[in-house]
């Protein structure tokens, strides 16, 4: 199995290199290479699906440094994330073959190379079995995605976003490197096998955990290392934002799970409290900021921060339960975490691709100039509706299932041996519930302003629906969202090997029968999406048919009524700012709000208000200022004259000679 996975990664790299054959040809990359990449994605998902239930398989590659070969291993955890990568990559690649067209900055062949290397490096991160190979793949992933983000490098703000991204990615990478250093504990054995065998002292283990949380958290976008996400996602082409948000953030989650559950295997319950707190803070922060965004891709980027926060909260709960030796509950929390990873990957890539189609059709990213696209782009609009319902965590789609599992994990918590933690749990559950409700708000804003209402700009009348490739990609991702929502017992059974591996228990929910999901026992909680959807559909149909049968079906088209006000214009609808206003008012302390209201006598009144991220002012700008001051000190040495530098060398030589003598 591991050979097949490695070959598939190699196939991706080969496809990328093929892009260099005709670097300027859109047709070749678009019609041949991206569809082939999608086929490889399906293959990867298939291989991973088999590997999930298979014994772990490992291989030592004849690559790398002498005496330091690459180790690769495919176990259930890797296989799960590989399946996620393959499934998302299939949809995104099909979409990309229709999407990436002329005038996008870098030549298409180069973009194709970076894109496929990005895919392959993510696959290699997932199968790496030693720190060296892992870091090589990790850095390849960071660099290839950096080039993809900056593929439209003519714009200064895109270059700036790319710089911010690569900076934070490297701060994270340093932290991960140090984490591996702590994990090998002076033995010099950097294979994961060796790290697993070690029993670290508590202090070192905690250090490794904190470093992993910070390092992988920088990649995943947890608060306060999140600032690159809302910059990099809008800058990148939409398929790339989809891949970054859907899969790359998940590789960071994979890294956290791998290090904490597998390599450390050191159950300390209060690590869970840290992860839970950081996760919930990220979730609330992300969704509150998503509510006030006016750029649709920034909105989705903040929503990614929220979802990663929820995933991290589930992870924290897993650690908490494992630390207290509650295996079944740890399995439940881990299932919820992994399920949410899968869900987020599919609905977020679907939404990012839909924004990509909107961007292509209208060349507009700002919510303030969109509207009414459900008439012009029905296919995109309806598939985006699936994504919005899913991401808002509404039944019967997939977002609800993982939130349900997570809330169930909270409901079972209050038997913990630690009294204080017990008291924290209701607060944490409330935060999760608030986040879920707010995400509904944000998604109504997103969908209502982009697709419903009147077009806010005259140019939108020329908008056209997506092409056949794009439609296929959207349809695939939407179909997976629906399937993940309707057949949760299949997914839960597929996750069982992983939960068995790390917690010793599984929750495949046999007790409730195939129709019901009952994580612990049916009397405590059960949910059946199929029955739910079936009865709801039946009721809706009966209502509709009854109204049809008993009453006339007459309908007349007229102007909108709106309390009899005849001079309606598109500008009277809520703008994105307007829709975000309640959240801005309710959560005012979270924002750094600046603005000015016009005076009543103003002839040409202008209203301006910005809600900024406080972390820029609390953390990033002070650090940047400090760095600048330090460089100013060093600049004194830098005279720019060669004679001065020669003098420095001479002085150094003299000093050294003095010491050596």
């Amino acid at each position, binding site marked *: 199995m591991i050979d097949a996975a490695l070959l598939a990664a190699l196939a991706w790299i080969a496809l990328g290199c093929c892009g260099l054959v005709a670097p300027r040809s859109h047709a070749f990359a678009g019609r041949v290479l991206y569809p082939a990449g999608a086929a490889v994605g399906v293959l990867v998902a298939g291989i991973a699906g088999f590997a999930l239930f298979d014994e772990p398989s490992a291989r030592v590659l004849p690559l790398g440094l002498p005496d330091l070969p690459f180790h690769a291993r495919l176990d259930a955890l890797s296989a799960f994330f590989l399946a996620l990568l393959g499934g998302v990559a299939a949809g995104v690649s099909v979409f990309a073959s229709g999407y990436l067209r002329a005038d996008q900055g870098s030549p298409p062949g180069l973009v194709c190379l970076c894109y496929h290397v990005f895919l392959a490096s993510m696959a290699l991160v997932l199968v790496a079995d030693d720190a060296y190979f892992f870091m090589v793949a990790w850095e390849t992933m960071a660099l290839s995605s950096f080039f993809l983000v900056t593929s439209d490098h003519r714009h200064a703000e895109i270059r700036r976003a790319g710089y911010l991204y690569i900076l934070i990615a490297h701060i994270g990478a340093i932290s991960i490197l140090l984490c591996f250093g702590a994990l090998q504990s002076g033995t010099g054995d950097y294979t994961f096998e060796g790290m697993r065998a070690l029993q670290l002292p508590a202090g070192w283990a905690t250090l490794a955990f904190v470093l992993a949380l910070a390092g992988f958290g920088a990649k995943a976008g947890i608060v306060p290392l999140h600032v690159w996400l809302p910059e990099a996602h809008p800058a990148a082409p939409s398929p790339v934002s989809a891949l970054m948000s859907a899969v790359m953030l998940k590789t960071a989650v994979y890294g956290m799970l791998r290090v904490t559950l597998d390599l450390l295997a050191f159950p300390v319950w209060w690590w869970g409290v840290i992860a839970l707190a950081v996760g919930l803070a990220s979730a609330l922060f992300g969704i509150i900021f998503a509510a006030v965004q006016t750029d649709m891709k920034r909105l989705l980027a903040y929503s990614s921060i929220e979802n990663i926060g929820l995933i991290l909260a589930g992870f924290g709960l897993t650690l908490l339960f494992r630390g207290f030796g509650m295996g079944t509950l740890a399995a439940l929390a881990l299932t919820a975490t992994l399920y949410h990873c899968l869900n987020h990957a599919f609905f977020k890539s679907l939404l990012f691709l839909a924004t990509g189609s909107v961007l292509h059709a209208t060349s507009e990213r700002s919510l303030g100039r969109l509207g009414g696209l459900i008439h012009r782009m029905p296919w995109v609009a309806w598939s985006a509706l699936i994504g919005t319902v899913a991401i808002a965590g509404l039944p019967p789609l997939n977002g609800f299932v993982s939130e349900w599992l997570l809330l169930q994990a909270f409901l079972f918590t209050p038997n913990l041996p630690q009294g204080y933690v017990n008291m924290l749990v209701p607060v944490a559950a409330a935060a999760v519930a608030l986040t879920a409700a707010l995400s509904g708000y944000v998604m109504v804003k997103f969908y209502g302003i982009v697709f419903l209402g009147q077009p806010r700009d005259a140019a939108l009348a020329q908008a056209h629906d997506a092409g056949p490739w794009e439609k296929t990609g959207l349809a695939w991702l939407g179909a997976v969202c629906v399937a993940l929502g309707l057949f949760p017992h299949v997914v839960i059974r597929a996750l069982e090997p992983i939960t068995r591996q790390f917690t010793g228990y599984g929750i495949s929910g046999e007790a409730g029968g195939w129709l019901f999901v009952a994580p612990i026992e049916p009397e405590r909680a059960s949910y059946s999406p199929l029955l739910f959807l079936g009865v709801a559909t039946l009721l809706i149909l009966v209502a*509709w048919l009854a109204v049809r049968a008993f009453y006339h079906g007459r309908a007349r088209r*007229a102007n909108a009524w709106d309390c009899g006000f005849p001079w309606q214009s*598109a500008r009277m609808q*809520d703008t994105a700012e307007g829709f975000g206003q309640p959240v801005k008012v309710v959560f005012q302390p979270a924002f750094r709000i600046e603005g000015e209201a016009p005076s009543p006598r103003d002839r040409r009144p202008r209203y301006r208000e910005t809600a900024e991220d406080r972390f820029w002012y609390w953390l990033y700008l002070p650090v940047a200022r400090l760095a600048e001051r330090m460089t100013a000190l060093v600049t004194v040495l830098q005279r720019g004259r060669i004679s001065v530098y020669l003098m420095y060398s001479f002085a150094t030589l003299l000093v050294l000679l003095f010491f050596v003598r």
Partner: protein
Amino acid sequence: MNLAGAAAQFTELMLAVLLAPLLTGWVNQCRAWLQNKSAPGLLQPYRVLAKLFQKEVVLAHNASPLFRAAPYLVFGCLALAAAIVPSLSTGLPLNAAADAIALVGLLALARFFIALAGMDVGTAFGTLGARREMMVGFLAEPALLMVLFTASLISHSSSLSTIVEALGHREFVIYPSMAFAGVAFTMVSLAENARIPVDNPATHLELTMIHEAMVLEYSGRHLAMVEWAASLKLFVYSCMGLALFFPFGIAQGGDWPGIVLALPVLLAKLAAGGAALALIEMVSAKMRIFRAPEFLGTAFLLAVLAMLVHVLLEG
């Protein structure tokens, strides 16, 4: 699932669908009495529905299919919610399909679609109403969830059926946490059902309305479905409140003699609940929309407090 269970389930569902406008009529009547007005008759909501069904539908030029589908969707969701909440009997077939969390999700789904429909035509009032409705929603929904969580923690189950059995059929115990939860639940249901002090169902004053602003563009049979769904929502919340806080007289496991006995008990409880709602509406004043977050924030905090009280005192 057996046939008797299915029949009981069907009875419960039809009862909710058919009785929901009556409950609305009863509340309106009580309110009119309390205000010393002559009431419009108990069956007035049915007459309004009949009138609306007869009328022609006038759609805005740019109304999308979503706008036309939403009333049926919302009605279907709330009818399903009415079937999930144990009003006559516990242990019915659909009780296992959705637990308390799924019920909250279902109500959120209905709100999601009606808000989208409010934004669909793109009028000033429609979007304003949708925004306000969602604002009420994002504060009320977690509070409702926390109330249900408190009940779930007490009965060690999130299944509504088990909750009602645990609360109603054991020996009588007073839970202090349920007192907090009760206050929170009352506040939430006032807000969710567009009642005073958050919204006023009787007014079409533009600047204060929430729910009515959102459905302003609906007419004819669509409006009838929306209105019916609104009464169903009130019915669902009333039954939920009765099941959580007065879970007495509800039959177990869908046995028919029990259901026959449960019906008059339910009607009496609903009548009392409706009168209480009218009284609350009478003695309070409509608050400014900007105060609504404070009101709902209080409800949310009370609900969280209820959970904390449970963990601290009853755990």
